[in-house]
């Protein structure tokens, strides 16, 4: 194989904390020109109570409660509010808000009801469709094209959940002060991953 031809640019580096791996969140907080001001003063509500409830239910559909807590237990809606408010550019905020409305619109067209009124199976069906759509969109997307709103939602839910207390300590394992390093211990299937 000709290495010179095989050279690839990759952003995410596996393993090795010494290498500056780029953060997995690809949306928002990129600061690539355009508006870079905080859109809303922190004391104001960025999302309404209903919108946060909506985000919690979207989250729960993506990361449901099983034998471990789910996105609603982790109150991902409240975390996502802070992240979208402080970390997203104005244009990404608009994409995100429009996306929230789009989900309700699709829900009414398809099931004649708001998303919050749907059965879990209907929610899963709707969001699975959106997830398929965003993946197809991102395979074709040019660098300058905007990010798909459902990609934003899915990534924010994963981040908010797995860094939450229930997510990190129940769906994963978290030890604040390990105190020692065991470099090579047996792993049995079913044992959770370390939170960080």
């Amino acid at each position, binding site marked *: 194989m000709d*290495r*010179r031809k*095989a*050279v*690839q*640019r*990759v952003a995410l*580096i*596996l*393993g*090795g*904390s*010494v*290498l*500056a*791996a*780029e*953060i997995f969140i690809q949306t928002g*907080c990129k*600061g690539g020109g355009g508006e*870079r001001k905080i859109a809303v003063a922190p004391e104001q509500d960025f999302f309404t109570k209903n919108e946060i409830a909506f985000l919690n239910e979207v989250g729960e559909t*993506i990361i*449901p409660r*099983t034998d471990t807590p789910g996105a609603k237990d982790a109150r991902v809606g409240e*975390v996502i509010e*802070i*992240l979208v408010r402080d*970390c997203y*550019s104005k244009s990404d905020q608009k994409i995100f808000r429009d996306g929230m409305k789009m989900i309700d619109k699709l829900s009414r067209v398809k099931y004649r009801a708001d998303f919050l009124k749907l059965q879990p199976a209907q929610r*899963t069906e709707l*969001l*699975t469709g959106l997830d*398929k759509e965003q993946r197809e969109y991102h395979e074709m997307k040019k660098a300058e094209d905007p990010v798909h709103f459902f990609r934003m939602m899915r990534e924010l839910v*994963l*981040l908010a959940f*797995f*860094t*939450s207390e229930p997510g*990190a300590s129940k*769906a994963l394992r*978290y*030890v*604040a*002060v*390990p*105190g*020692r*390093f*065991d*470099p*090579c*211990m*047996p*792993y049995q299937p079913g*044992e*959770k*991953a*370390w*939170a*960080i």
Partner: protein
Amino acid sequence: MADNTFDAIVVGSGISGGWAAKELTEKGLKTIMLERGMDVRHIIDYKSANLSPWQVPHRGMRTQKILDDYPVLKRDSYLNELNLEWWANEKDCPYVETKRFDWYRAYVVGGRSLLWGRHCYRHSDIDFEANAKQGIGVDWPIRYKDIEPWYTHVEKFTGIQGKKEQWPVFPDSDMLPAMAMNCVEEDFTKTLNTKYKGKRLITSGRTANLSQAHNGRNACQYRDKCVLGCPYGAYFSTQSATLPAAVATGNLTLRPFSIVTKIIYDEDSKKAKGVEVLDAKTNQTYEYFAKVVFLCASTLNSTWVLMNSATDVWPGGLGSSSNELGHNLMDHHFRCGAKGEAEGYEDKYYYGRRPMGGIYIPRFRNVLGDKRDYLRGFGYQGGASRQNWKRDVAELGIGEDLKNALSDPGPWGMGIGAFGEILPYHENKILLDKDKKDKWGLPVLNIDAEIKENEIKMRTDMMADAAEMLEVAGLKNVKTFDSGYGFGQGIHEMGTARMGRYPKTSVLNANNQVWDCNNVFVTDGACMTSGSCVNPSLTYMALTARAVDFAVSELKKGHL
């Protein structure tokens, strides 16, 4: 003694300044350490060190405000809301980039010793002899034997974990027991050390992390939160190590918020009398006097102080008579290498978070009989780990399967990235900008540097050699990467006040004395004559301790 008069002045409180202060005070000199930024007290001021992931307001994401406030720091991954106040305020402290230059500065007590990557390697004679042999720049005025005892001296105090190897071009340090490699790294090391026997070495990364309690400091607790400050004092910083030692002598005065604007030069005696300080909070100007001045303000800022000093005698500043002050800026170019996946270790995991990458591969290009179409070489840092939830599993879409998959540890991945030497090019330079001023009305630096053909050729090998070794070790899906490099991004700025054998071609002599003013010593990265490819901080420590020893003996002889 008047309260503005000391035996010695140290400018800067990072790795080099901390060492200067420790050595000077331990030799009995009343010393003032001047730091331009705020104080950061050991443990007490490590405000984020004990936060849980869910207590981090933005969970690792960067706010628009942070991106707006730190246009330079945002170019790499270091920018983090948890230690933001340790980085220089980029709006108050601007600089001019004639060419892109990433200048990552920490303007607080401790400087970048709080934030550094902690890898520690000795230079060897392949580094000290290279310029002379190849006709590049000027010859180092010292050889390995001159610095060897000082490496040992600083290592015994610092505490560096690692493994002795007796490898010909990679001198061993005086080390604490090595932190363990995980199973993938262990097998990688065994396989390659057999395959490349005598030609290449794979060893443990050597870092200033304590694998056992050392000199009153605690052993590492394997939290991997070093950059937030260590409440256990388990990595080397000014705060954990050199500052308490200097304070214990009773000879140290530490003055934060003290911007040294110039060295006060006395033309009659041809010596420095002291320094002028601008109080960063009150804007008042003060003078401090001493017999000897150690400039340890970080590579570019030490040179900035020189450029601002004695300009009535030398328009280019103190130490500029050779016309080399500000020139020969170097860094290490990096962010390229290879990564792959390790199969067959699905039943293995680890406990605890080791605070650095596991392996180091010393330079093997253009040494030990190897010859390439470029000069010098590179070393690799890297390691293996199991992926976490951030790997995502896009094809699992949403729901229970996704959650279950991400709750399990992912595949093993391993990556190695190279750090390459940059030659000392005269035209890679800094100068005082004519127009721009900082918050205090002081002139700012204009930086003009780039990598050239030698480094660009090297980067091809930095990727290809990495991929070859990962494949030889049996890793799958091996891919090379080049994430792009901005000069300065290695945070290993070196040069601009180089050591040399002659006053006509260098700024400093073999003992780090400014040729033009022999009671001023520059012992941080500014003094470097060439860059090697190994991480430089350990060499600054050793050169600083060596220069202090020389300075104090000269003082006793009445020479300074």
